[in-house]
């Protein structure tokens, strides 16, 4: 009964990218976004954990390090449910292309490593829409570590899995935590049919492959006149409400 196992009914297209931190997925999604816009498509972008609803709560909890794995997991699900209802489904109904930086697979990988039950977290997200394509950027852990340590100000607490107490050293903790996340992604690739991209190759070659796959998925999709869903208006009900207000 999970919606994640059957194609969505909307006229739009949903493409998502997944992978550990430093896998290059955001860079690739950004390039794909630019290309789609240049091609004349209407594109909507959304990213993991960005709903204004729970942003403050997440920040607060993370700062105080008082989130237990289950609370952490459900909070992200709340964020996702809010974005799905407000930022993902409506553009899909309007026939747009929706790009998501991380999707439910992030929760399936990370939260299970943090200790929640795999079946439980899959049920939790079973209201989600199945993406048309889900790309998984696969990189060796060393490549990812190199990228996140040279390119950024420092490893973030949760990104490095410091809450799990694997090591006091952020880099060591990152290696241990993200290696387990990679193992979960391997499982998910088979379970949900993720499209694997070699994230260690040259940026332009990865992008070429991405565009090929997306192009294929867009063969039945008309960019300039997207097939929107226009709900039928319930004119009788509307008239009734109007008359009761005016009478």
């Amino acid at each position, binding site marked *: 009964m999970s919606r994640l196992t059957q194609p969505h009914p909307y006229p739009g297209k949903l493409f998502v990218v997944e992978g550990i931190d430093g896998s290059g997925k955001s860079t690739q999604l950004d390039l794909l976004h630019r290309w789609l816009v240049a091609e004349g498509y209407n594109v909507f972008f959304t990213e993991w954990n960005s709903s204004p*609803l729970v942003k*403050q*709560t997440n920040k*607060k909890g993370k700062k105080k390090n*008082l989130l237990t794995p*289950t*609370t952490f997991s459900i909070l992200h699900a709340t964020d996702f449910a809010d974005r799905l209802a407000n930022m993902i489904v409506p553009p899909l109904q309007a026939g747009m292309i929706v790009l998501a930086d991380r999707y439910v697979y992030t929760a399936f990988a990370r939260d299970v490593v943090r200790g*929640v039950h795999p079946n439980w977290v899959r*049920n*939790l997200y079973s209201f989600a829409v199945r993406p048309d394509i889900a790309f998984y950027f696969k990189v060796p852990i060393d490549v990812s570590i190199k990228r996140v340590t040279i390119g950024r100000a420092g490893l973030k607490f949760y990104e490095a899995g410091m809450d799990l107490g694997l090591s006091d050293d952020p880099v060591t903790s990152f290696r241990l935590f993200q290696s387990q996340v990679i193992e979960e992604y391997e499982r998910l690739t088979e379970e949900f049919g993720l499209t694997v991209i070699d994230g260690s190759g040259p940026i332009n070659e990865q992008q070429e492959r991405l565009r090929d796959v997306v192009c294929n998925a867009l063969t039945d999709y008309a960019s300039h006149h997207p097939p929107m869903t226009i709900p039928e208006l319930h004119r009788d009900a509307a008239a009734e409400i109007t008359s009761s207000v005016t009478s």
Partner: protein
Amino acid sequence: MRDEIFYGDGLPYVDTTDLDGKLIVIEGTDGVGRSTQIEGTNESGKSTPIEGLKRWLEVQGYGVVSTGWTRSPLLGPAIDAIKEGNTLNQITYSILYAADFADRLENVIIPALKGGFIVLADRYMYTAFARHVVRGVDPHWLRRVYGFAPLPDLVIYLKIGLEDLIQRTFTSGRSMKYWESGMDIGYRGGLYESFVEYQTLVLEEFDKMTEEFGFTVLDASPKIEHVNQKLKDVIGEFLTTTN
């Protein structure tokens, strides 16, 4: 120790071998008098003619922790914000409550059970099942979401009929509140009509759950002193048979 610790998939990372306390849940719809029975005080903190269950157990030498529904410091503000805005879809709304419960469960309820306390829970997952299912959420999905909840040792359902509930709501000086009347789901008519329609559905859900979860049903329509004595009888008997 009971055979099944968790309602569903559970918390794989929690050691459950030392949950030595007892989890006692008092369930019932809005305004039935749960908090008064547990704390011995009314909503505005004034004392009542009854001795609350918490105090009563403490006098007998038990360590007691009482806990409510949606009172965790982490999510309280977020839930309040939604109550003001209320443009949330029902799935998000139901998960947010589950997050709040998880926070309280892992920070309050489980540590207290490990410490050998009696936990008196004013509402539990059953309240969520009633409220969200009435609002259109899939009951099977929601039950699995709460699969991390430990099964209570005893659930006492304070059962009340609609007419008595309406009378109690007004005689206790409360009023029919927006959420307790289901006004958010857009029933036509005024507050009173909404309250009747909404609470009827909520009471039906509780009735359905009585068998599903084996609630101990207690008639909440008599005077609170009478209900209080009945509660003490049930809990007293439970404690003597399990210890």
